[in-house]
């Protein structure tokens, strides 16, 4: 198993254990635990994709990979902290404007993580860029198609999904399909 895959798998497993431990604690906000569990699952899946795709999945130059991890990991850590802080504060603040600001606390961290991803794609070599762009195209198409279909089903009152759940899942779903597509596409060039 590639070293990067091990790192992602181990950190995902540790976060998942932490989330399970927190769920057992009384008074712990369910949303915070769920978001942590989702992040842990994401890390585990990235580890799985890297293990499946091997080198062909993600073969950026070492300097680019180092810069990417330096730019990506701190915002993700900040995101986890911001989610907990946001959930904790939302239980204590009633003023609508303040609640809006507090609810959006995790967004800058995710924006920074997205910036790291974009910079990585832009500075990757031409083959890696082709793989990444094809993967993000597939992910965008799948998520758009899924949401459009779900929208029609919701209009027809066949399903009833809460808007907040649907909106929260756009980014994780895109990331999940992107990772899967990248692993499959990367194998084509091995």
């Amino acid at each position: 198993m590639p070293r990067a895959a091990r790192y992602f798998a181990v950190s995902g497993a540790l976060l998942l254990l932490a989330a399970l431990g927190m769920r057992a604690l009384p008074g712990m906000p369910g949303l915070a635990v769920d978001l942590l569990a989702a992040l842990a699952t994401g890390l585990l899946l990235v580890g799985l994709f890297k293990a499946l795709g091997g080198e062909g999945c993600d073969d950026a130059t070492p300097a680019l990979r180092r810069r990417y991890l330096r730019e990506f990991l701190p915002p993700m850590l900040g995101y986890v902290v911001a989610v907990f802080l946001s959930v904790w504060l939302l239980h204590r603040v009633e003023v609508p404007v303040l609640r809006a600001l507090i609810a959006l606390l995790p967004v800058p961290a995710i924006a920074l993580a997205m910036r790291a991803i974009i910079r990585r794609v832009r500075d990757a070599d031409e083959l890696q860029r082709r793989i990444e762009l094809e993967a993000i195209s597939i992910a965008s198409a799948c998520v758009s198609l899924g949401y459009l279909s779900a929208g029609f089903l919701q209009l027809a009152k066949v399903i009833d999904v809460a808007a907040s759940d649907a909106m929260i899942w756009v980014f994780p779903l895109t990331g999940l399909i992107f990772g899967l597509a990248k692993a499959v596409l990367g194998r084509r060039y091995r």
Partner: protein
Amino acid sequence: MDSRVRELREAQGWSQGELAERLAVSRQTVNAIETGKYDPSLPLAFRIARLFVQPIEAIFQPADH
């Protein structure tokens, strides 16, 4: 596209990683070019040609040529 990149690289005694470093691309890209799974862009083909001091058409040929 058929290429002589592997032959030229081996003649220099370079590994795929060394060639990748000289071309500022990943080892995966060098491997994909050598195995014919990926056709390089024109700028990269020029860099390869310049590195091996050969005209592009002496390194890359259409597959049905």
